[in-house]
């Protein structure tokens, strides 16, 4: 969807304290310049290829396809990128912008820790200081990633406010940025926040679908019939959709975290159950009460456990271009186990939401049709919590 005047349809905007506006304006200027600067684009793509290991595979999941007996399933393997998730794509782009702005310190929010790890990685590579805000609850359930970030030289700051989840980490990062903007760049990992962040994340993550489009045409000679990606704030989903937005035959599906079920109080399915609001710098959909107080959220997945959604997704839902569905914890865990056994791939619990929906969707489609499901990250970080979910006691 084209961003016009900082908005996607009615969604988006820049709802931040005045103190941050000059910084956002500078950032937007640098971002707009970089879009058409061949030197920037060359550097970005060089790092994507040489450092992050792109292009990522488009892999035909033959076992799953045979087992399900519907559409042919292709997996876009973002889990094979350096650092183990799609997050590295956007981090490279934004870190290059940070360098252009003369910043020497990167800060980030992280839920599952994948974006924090990616940010810590690029900070190490570029020789920048790095602080990552992570909800206290998330630091407990993603201990492995906390230690990875520390190994990479980043300071991990546990956030005890609120529920100690991704939303609270964003609040803390925004507060840090408001005070330290002079030397600090806030590297937002999801497709959320004030303009130009959602558009930046869109652009830097669109490499996922630019590649998958070419790879699919090379493999089958036609476009895919459907794209499925998981959706917390929406970064891998927007990257997976971007190159197909003007191909109306390609159906786009986002899988949200339905937690214990959409009809319970325990989920994080913003587009399925939320309403329009203004928070974290953007007008979008949020889980909130009748007074506009942001609601508590729940999901087994720390990366999807967020009460908002990127504004472009809100607009894609409103226009009918994309469809968003809820996947429960149980469905996601089953998919995690299923793809491990069928394909020998340990996918992130976030990505397992997309795999769970792909299983449902493929069954309803014909064998001559194709689906691309984005495996946004690898699941090593989740093994301990899946074991716990299944009641298996392992020493992590």
């Amino acid at each position, binding site marked *: 969807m084209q961003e016009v005047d900082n908005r996607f349809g009615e969604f988006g905007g820049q709802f931040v304290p005045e103190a941050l*506006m000059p910084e956002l304006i500078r950032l937007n200027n640098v971002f707009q310049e970089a879009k058409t600067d061949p030197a920037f684009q060359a550097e970005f793509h060089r790092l994507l290829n040489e450092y992050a290991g792109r292009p990522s595979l488009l892999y035909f999941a033959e076992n799953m396809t045979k087992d399900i007996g519907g559409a042919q399933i292709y997996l876009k393997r973002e889990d094979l990128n350096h650092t183990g998730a799609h997050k590295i794509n956007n981090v490279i782009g934004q870190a290059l912008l940070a360098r252009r702005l003369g910043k020497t310190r990167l800060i980030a929010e992280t839920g599952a820790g994948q974006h924090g790890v990616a940010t810590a990685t690029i900070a190490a590579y570029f020789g920048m200081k790095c602080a990552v805000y992570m909800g206290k609850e998330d630091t407990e359930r993603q201990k492995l990633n906390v230690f990875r970030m520390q190994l990479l030289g980043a300071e991990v700051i546990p956030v005890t406010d609120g529920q100690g989840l991704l939303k609270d980490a964003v609040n803390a990062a925004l507060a840090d940025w408001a005070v330290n903007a002079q030397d600090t760049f806030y590297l937002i990992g999801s497709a959320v926040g004030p303009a130009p962040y959602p558009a930046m994340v869109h652009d830097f993550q669109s490499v996922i679908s630019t590649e998958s489009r070419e790879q699919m045409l090379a493999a089958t000679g036609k476009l895919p019939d459907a794209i499925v990606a998981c959706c917390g704030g929406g970064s891998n989903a927007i990257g997976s959709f971007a190159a197909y937005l003007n191909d109306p035959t390609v159906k786009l599906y986002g899988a949200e975290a339905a937690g214990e079920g959409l009809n319970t109080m325990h989920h994080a399915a913003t587009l399925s159950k939320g309403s329009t609001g203004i928070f974290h710098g953007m007008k979008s959909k949020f889980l909130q009460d009748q007074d506009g*107080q942001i609601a508590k959220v729940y999901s087994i997945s720390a990366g999807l456990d967020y009460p908002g959604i990127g504004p472009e997704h809100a607009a894609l839902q409103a226009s009918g271009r994309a469809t968003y569905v809820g996947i429960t914890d149980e469905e996601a865990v089953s998919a995690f186990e299923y793809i491990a056994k069928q394909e020998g791939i340990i996918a992130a619990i976030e990505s397992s939401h997309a795999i769970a929906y792909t299983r449902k969707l493929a069954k309803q489609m014909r064998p001559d049709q194709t689906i691309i499901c984005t495996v946004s990250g690898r699941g090593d970080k989740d093994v301990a919590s899946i074991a716990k979910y299944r009641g298996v006691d392992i020493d992590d």
Partner: protein
Amino acid sequence: MTNFSAIFKHQTGVIPFIIAGDPDADTTVASVVAEAEAGAAIVELGVPFSDPVADGPVVKAGNQRAFAGGITVAKVFDIIARIRLQTQVPLVLVTYTNVPFVYGYAAFAKKAASFGVAGVVVPDLPHEEAADFRAALADEGIDLITIVGPADPERIKAVVAPATGFLTVFPAPPEPVLSQEIAAIRAASDLPIVVNAEVTQPQAVEAIAKVADGVQLNAAFVQLIADHADAKTVADYTKRLVSAVTTIK
């Protein structure tokens, strides 16, 4: 619209901040009334928000106490109604965009106007996004109070151009930058300038009062409520601040 210039004309104004419902409605009503009697020029009343991202830990904790006490937007308006039975001190509401947005900008403005609310401050509603709410408030005779941050003269000029009521400097830089910033704002606007001060000591407030038309204290008052939850304590503090700035102008 309220004539804020008249309020600030003869003496630098002291503007206390109280979070509605922190820790309960009775404390809020008594505190606002006591502050008005102690000489507060304006009282700012916080409408609690779940995620006050522009506020520090003290104000955040105050919001949480208010929620623990069961505060809702409807109850905030009940509190304002009770305050209005005892004082006509100019009231300025402080809240985050989502609260009036979800209430409906026009409905929020109308409701606030029914209690004679003078202004509304919204820390996460910058110049670029403010037009709709500003218009809805103006229709009801309420000023959207404009926040001016550290910026170049061009930006300051753009930000203050549509402003009415008074201007709030936030965050307040240390001297001599504060005086320079205020001079730049005065070059662009005739509106009174209030400084949102992080300081708590009357002497520090007096120093700011020398260059500003009003001094607004957020964390200082919220901390007093946290420690004492008592109207007399906040009234005494207000009196000390008022006398500290009283020799100015």
